[in-house]
């Protein structure tokens, strides 16, 4: 008998003022003692909901509407609260998606450990300190309050806390999301070691493909509330059974590879508040046949695992989602559009965020700026766009010294330099329509009339692939998907026909499948329109895909720079190597 047996589990959200959403639909799977299982899936497909249901931690308006969860012989879905309470943590524990907020802000870390021991009648002794040592933290952390710890430290505390009572099963729901790549790496490495050492089973939820594929023994893929594929990781890396898995894995590649080609899955998942007929992936599937529209496939054995696809036995259509690889033309080096020379930026309190950085931007070329969190990437973007003034050095746009611009002149400069924001959810005013957002730069910078601006806005939407434009103009941001929003943000940045586009981590908040799509768009724009682009990221894969040139930034200094391929494949500086080491190495 498996440690955890989930059978036909369904979860429905029934908001008081909304339509019910069946977020988890008849899901069945097992987790064996000591097994490390990964759960993959696009944002919103029901991963966290499933995890919470397994722990029976669902809050209103969600409720388990069917099925059972049997853990070690006890049915969790029907267990009494007290039985459950004593089971929790002692045998089954968790680290949440947002463990930044999962510690009580007003009591010390130590007190939270004590709470946990006390609730289970265990004498804490020195366990807390030992546990912290296990995740490489100093015991003084016990006396600290959560806000006194960095994100990575909090995450480690959460992990230590999860292991406090030596549980047999730990649910990890994106335990490192939002952390710096390097930190993330060290935590995950530690986690894997501990798992091997202590032998607990893990259900690891993430949409970070590389990581899941590297860490898990077995991987399940979820789509629209259902498990669509379940295979050993190794087997899945080699061959995906479900077209969706194929699309998903296609969007990942190792940036160090000699050749990379990345695909994406266009379209959006179905609306779960509606009755579903047929295969849920049918609308986005390149292999769709008529039967897919009417017949709902079951999760059936296939290959080395299970798959939910009628066409599972048909040969995969090669390049189903593939993005046509672009020819990497080396644009001739003309005069730089923007020249950054020895800029230094000191913030009050003595932080030197940027230290003597120099580089050029050329039209039609993409320069990537990579580096760990806090390395000064955003600060550089601010200097380039005139949001901040350099303490020393100069930023020159043709003959203009950007650092000296103010008021009207600065506004005029911004006609030529535009910014694409990291978070498409924050970059659009939730109360203004797409048409309004696009019309502002058109009217302000190009002096178009309202009618002209309207027409141009529609054109812009077509350019970024939101066609037909009429369908999007009157929408509010919340009516768009993340990818669509990011396209609107890009369209807005393109509106004044800038010479330079600064994109500050434009894809970090997006789902893997959408990332490729946006990257492709940016790439096209840079080439077709001859825009000089500064692409900021901590994701080497995207840098590899998009950039002609890479600058590696560490503690405000450029430690390495050059053509993309050279920097990534033949890194020389230790810091660059550290960044590369942080990349997952899927089996």
């Amino acid at each position, binding site marked *: 008998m498996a440690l955890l047996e989930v059978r036909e589990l369904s979860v429905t959200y029934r908001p008081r003022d909304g339509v019910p959403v069946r977020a988890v639909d008849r899901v069945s799977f097992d987790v064996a003692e000591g097994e490390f299982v990964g759960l993959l899936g696009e944002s919103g497909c029901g991963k966290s909901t499933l995890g919470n249901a397994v722990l029976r*931690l669902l809050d209103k308006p969600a409720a388990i509407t069917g099925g059972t969860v049997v853990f070690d012989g006890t049915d969790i879905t029907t267990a009494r609260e007290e039985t459950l*309470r004593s089971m929790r943590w*002692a045998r089954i524990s968790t680290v949440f998606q947002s463990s930044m907020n999962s510690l*009580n802000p*007003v009591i010390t870390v130590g007190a939270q450990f004590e709470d946990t021991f006390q609730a289970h009648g265990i004498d804490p002794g020195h366990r807390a300190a030992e546990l912290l040592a296990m995740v490489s933290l100093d015991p003084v952390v016990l006396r600290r*309050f959560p*806000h*006194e710890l960095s994100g990575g430290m909090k995450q480690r505390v959460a992990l230590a*806390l999860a292991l406090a009572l030596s549980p047999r099963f730990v649910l990890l729901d994106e335990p490192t999301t939002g952390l710096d790549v390097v930190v993330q790496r060290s935590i995950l490495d530690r986690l894997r070691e501990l798992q091997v050492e202590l032998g607990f089973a893990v259900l690891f939820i993430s949409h970070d493909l590389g990581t899941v594929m590297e860490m898990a023994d077995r991987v399940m893929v979820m789509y629209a509330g259902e498990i669509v594929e379940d295979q050993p990781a190794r087997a899945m890396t080699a061959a995906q059974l479900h077209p969706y898995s194929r699309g998903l894995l296609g969007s990942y590649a190792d940036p160090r590879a000699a050749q990379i080609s990345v695909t994406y899955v266009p379209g959006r998942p179905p609306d779960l508040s509606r009755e579903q007929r047929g295969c849920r992936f049918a609308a986005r599937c390149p292999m769709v046949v008529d039967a897919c529209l009417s017949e709902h496939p079951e999760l059936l054995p296939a290959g080395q695992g299970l798959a939910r696809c009628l066409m599972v036995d048909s040969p995969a259509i090669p390049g189903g989602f593939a993005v046509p690889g672009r020819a990497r033309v080396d644009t001739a080096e003309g005069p730089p559009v923007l020249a950054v020379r020895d800029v230094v930026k000191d913030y009050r309190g003595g932080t030197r965020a940027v230290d003597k950085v120099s580089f050029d931007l050329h039209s039609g070329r993409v320069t990537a700026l990579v580096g760990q969190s806090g390395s000064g990437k955003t600060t550089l973007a601010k200097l380039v766009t005139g949001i901040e003034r350099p303490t020393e050095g100069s930023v020159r746009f043709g003959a203009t010294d950007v650092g000296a611009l103010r008021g009207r002149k600065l506004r005029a400069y911004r006609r030529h330099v535009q910014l694409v924001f990291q978070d498409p959810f924050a970059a659009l005013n939730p109360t203004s329509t797409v048409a309004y957002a696009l019309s502002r730069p058109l009217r302000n910078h190009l002096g178009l009339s309202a009618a002209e601006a309207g027409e141009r806005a529609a054109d812009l939407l077509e350019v970024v692939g939101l066609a037909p434009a009429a369908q999007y103009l009157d929408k509010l941001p919340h009516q768009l998907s993340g990818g669509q929003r990011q396209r609107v943000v890009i369209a807005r940045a393109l509106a004044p026909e800038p010479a330079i586009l600064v994109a500050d981590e434009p894809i970090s908040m997006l789902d893997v499948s959408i990332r490729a799509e946006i990257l492709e768009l940016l790439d096209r724009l840079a080439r077709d329109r001859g825009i000089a682009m500064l692409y900021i990221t901590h994701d080497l894969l995207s840098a590899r895909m998009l950039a002609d040139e890479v600058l590696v930034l560490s503690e405000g200094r450029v430690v390495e720079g050059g053509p993309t391929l050279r920097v990534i494949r033949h890194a020389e500086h230790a810091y660059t190597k550290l960044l590369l080491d942080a990349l997952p190495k899927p089996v």
Partner: protein
Amino acid sequence: MRYFLRRAGFFAATLWAAVTLNFLIPRLQPGDPAEAIVSRLSGETRIVDPAQVEAIRKMLGVPGGNLLAQYGDYLSAVLAGDFGVSYTYFPYTVTHMIAEGLPWTVVLVGVTQVVSFVAGTLLGAWAAYRRNSRVDSLITLGSTFVGTLPFFWLALVLIYVFGFTLNWFPAQGGYGGGSSPGWTWAFFSDAVQHSVLPALSLLIVGPVGWIIGMRNNMVQTLGEDYARLARARGLTRRRIALTYGARIAVLPNVTGFAIALGGILGGTVLVESVFNYPGLGRMMLEAVSNRDYPLMQALFLFITIGVLAANFLADVLYGVLDPRVRGEEAA
């Protein structure tokens, strides 16, 4: 340190502004203290005797002349802690009068505020704990209606029902006419009896704000990830409600409470005038209508200092209670 200096600067500046306003507001009012006193003395006939006005003006030495000079005198007097002689209670000093009224106000309103706060917070926490149950509805809806009853009206009804019809408690005053104020048990129990009705009326309307505030805060904190994780950690419901819900939810309420405490002097006008309670609120109303500048100024100053001190206390308290803001002072 910078932070501290900034706060201190803020308090000093606000205090100065308040002191100045307190000087100006009374003086902007029309009317003359001497006339006000005579017209009060004239009672129903409302006949003002000019000779008497003249004499009283001489008696009070009502300041005249240059406003700026008056302001200078006023500032130096205030700095010296000299608030002058009350016009209404001539020749008693303002300091004496405030000393008379202060304990009553502070005890009555202080005690009821504390009780309201504690009761309101507990009820609010209970409502949040039993969210959407019948208890919750009863507490929120019930307290809303009761809490919105006009305070003075409630006071009148209480006076009539308990003070006159049932005759359970004295209807007015701070103590009986027969007792002699002092630190005796007899006087104390007399004073307690007299404070029952005013206290009751304050207690009926007092807790509602705390109830709603606490409930809403706690509903929020109980929905936060740390509360959910606490549940996952197998903590008991009560423990979660207390340490992970109430403990955090109470913080904004505590600040609110400190500020409310500072406002008690300003907020007692109604209760004291209806119950004829010998505190500062009623004295202030009287001072305003009698154009008793010295008393008015001192009372306003008192209130302002109270509010400022409470603000300061709230800042400090928040720092003590909420570790999150403790470190921020350095920043």
